[in-house]
């Protein structure tokens, strides 16, 4: 049994079926890329894993190390080691970055990390990700640029040390330098204890993070699976081939 095992997952939003039976396996230590055109359901899968209040799971199962995720709240999933780097990170006015991170780290570790130790780790990770120290006094994501928000997502992952990290379009909107910084950050986190699911429309992030497997989603199902070479095919051919094959009923 895989660490993350998704079988026949169906998800609706506003009475529209978005995921129509998804199967996916992911193990710790593995990096998987999930690709697909806009509207294929990639982000919905990301949210389904992390625990979305506005979606309804209508069928299938999704287990993390044998625990059914569908029955858990987002915070319970996070405490099991699930992390979602969001495509559009949310601004939370008045909640300082330091306070937020410390509260989250204490919640996930289920112990009070001493302030001194926490701040040392935080500053070290910020330096790695090229995040300025002045951010500590700012409110969560408030007034951050697109690139700053994405780096802050990876910073959170570095501190929370998840076992499963879902990166939802983390590359979108980043210039090439920021993309490299973020990709290096992800690579630093990678190891035998971390499973990574990279959700992306374009292949550019995969030049810096090499996936073990690539899956392609279309109209709420995974329609193609392969190795890194599948991403290369999409790089040259785009999604037209998949669209055409699907239209032809292949």
């Amino acid at each position, binding site marked *: 049994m895989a660490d993350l095992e998704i079988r026949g997952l169906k998800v609706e939003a506003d009475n529209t079926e978005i995921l129509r039976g998804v199967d996916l396996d992911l193990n710790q230590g593995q990096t998987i890329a999930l690709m697909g055109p806009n509207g294929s359901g990639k982000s*919905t899968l990301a949210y389904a894993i992390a625990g979305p209040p*506005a979606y309804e799971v209508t069928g299938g199962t999704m287990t993390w190390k044998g625990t059914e995720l569908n029955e858990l709240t987002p*915070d319970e999933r*996070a405490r099991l080691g699930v992390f979602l780097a*969001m495509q559009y990170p949310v601004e*939370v*006015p*008045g909640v300082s970055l330091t306070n937020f991170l410390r509260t989250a780290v204490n*919640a996930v570790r289920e112990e009070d990390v001493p302030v001194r130790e926490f701040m040392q780790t935080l500053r070290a990770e910020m330096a790695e990700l090229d995040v300025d120290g002045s951010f500590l006094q700012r409110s969560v994501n408030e007034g951050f640029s697109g690139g700053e928000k994405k780096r802050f997502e990876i910073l959170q992952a570095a501190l929370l040390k998840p076992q499963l990290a879902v990166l939802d379009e983390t590359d979108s909107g980043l210039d090439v330098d920021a993309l490299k910084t973020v990709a290096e950050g992800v690579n630093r986190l990678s190891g035998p204890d971390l499973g990574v699911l990279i959700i992306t429309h374009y292949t550019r992030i995969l030049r810096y993070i090499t996936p073990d497997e690539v899956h392609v989603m279309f109209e709420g199902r995974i329609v193609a699976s392969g190795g890194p070479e599948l991403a290369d095919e999409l790089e040259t051919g785009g999604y037209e081939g998949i669209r055409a094959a699907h239209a032809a009923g292949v």
Partner: protein
Amino acid sequence: MTSLTTLTEEALTGASNAADEPTWLRDRRLAAYKRTLDLAWPDSRADEFWRSTPFAQRLDVEREIVVGGGSVSPASFTADLDVEVAMARIVDGALVEVTVPAAMVAQGVLVTDLSTAAAEHVELVEPALGALTSSNTEGTGSGADRTITVNDAAWTAGVFIHVPAEVELDTPIVIQVHAETGGAHLPRVLALLGHHARASVYLEHTSGADTDALVDEVVEVIAHDAAQLDVVSFQQWGSHVDHLALQKVQAHRDSRIRHLSVTVGGRTVRFLPETDLVGPGAETRPLGVYFADEGQWFDLQPYVRHLAPHATSDVLFKGALQGNSRTVFRGNIFVDKDAVGTDTDENNKSLILTEGARADATPFLEIECSDIVAGHGSATGQIDALQLYYLTSRGIPREEALRLIVTGFFREVFGDVDLPGVEDAALTEIDERIAAADLSRFQVNDASLKDHHDE
């Protein structure tokens, strides 16, 4: 003594004589008493400024005036601070204790009994006392109102503060007003800041848990040229205390005023922080945070009059409500025809936490001058589901996430307010209310969540 409705000339004269007040003060009390006789208690249906609090339904004036003082020693949040504050303690209608640090005394700072000061510092007190209330002005928001004139006539516990010109204080002057005995309490404060003086005055309002009282308070402050003044008013009453507060500041040339109120306690609180900007370049920032719970009614009426050119006002009130509670924000900015170059902004934001709470906001602008910059706005909303989701997706339990969001909502008000202990004390008060609340009843607005997913 007597009740608010059965005041007599004899009783007032007797009390004034007993306090050894000078003749001018006794005469002024009697003049205010005569005005009181001409005025009815407010009629909330007829009086525009009282529409936001139903006087007859919520306020009981048939109460004995509490005099004589008490021995209760309420805690002050400033006790935990590493600073030596001046402290004046009013308990049950009497000024029972005054402590002034030697350093302040050496600089000529006065914190003393108002009746005594009326005799000993007549040159300071006589021209100022009542100068800002209905005693000698008409037509302001608080003018010609019996709840004010009755305090003018019969105040029983007064504090006088004088910070001489060019004296800059780094530590606050704290006035505690405590009601332990039920009845009517009539505290009075007069504070004068000389030119280029700097001071902060904290008012802490507390009561016994079961004390059933009406506190009718008048605070007058005159800030002379280029003075810097912070007034901080904490309303921490028990749930059976009604509070009518007029806290009026006169701001002279280039003075800078911040007036912060923290309203969490009380049954009915009608709070009037008013500023008259009478000198060019003066600045005022009426700020407010409030948290209303079951049965509470807060009527908050910041009123700023721009009476001189190039003055600035920036009003920001933020409140959260839960249970069967009601808040009214009725801000008013008046800009005189000669007040060219006025810069004013007025905002109110409310967070409705549970069903049954109601927040009304009317930010008024009354502008008689065209050469100005003015903005105003109000917003009422609920906790944002997307923010809640984001925090919980990082492992933070829902209840803790709600607490972070609500506390964060208030933080904007404190901005650059760097007064020792104030932000912490205010947020602690709010945090205690959230901690006591049934968070499962909090309503969350998921509109943002749907928009987010559509992106």
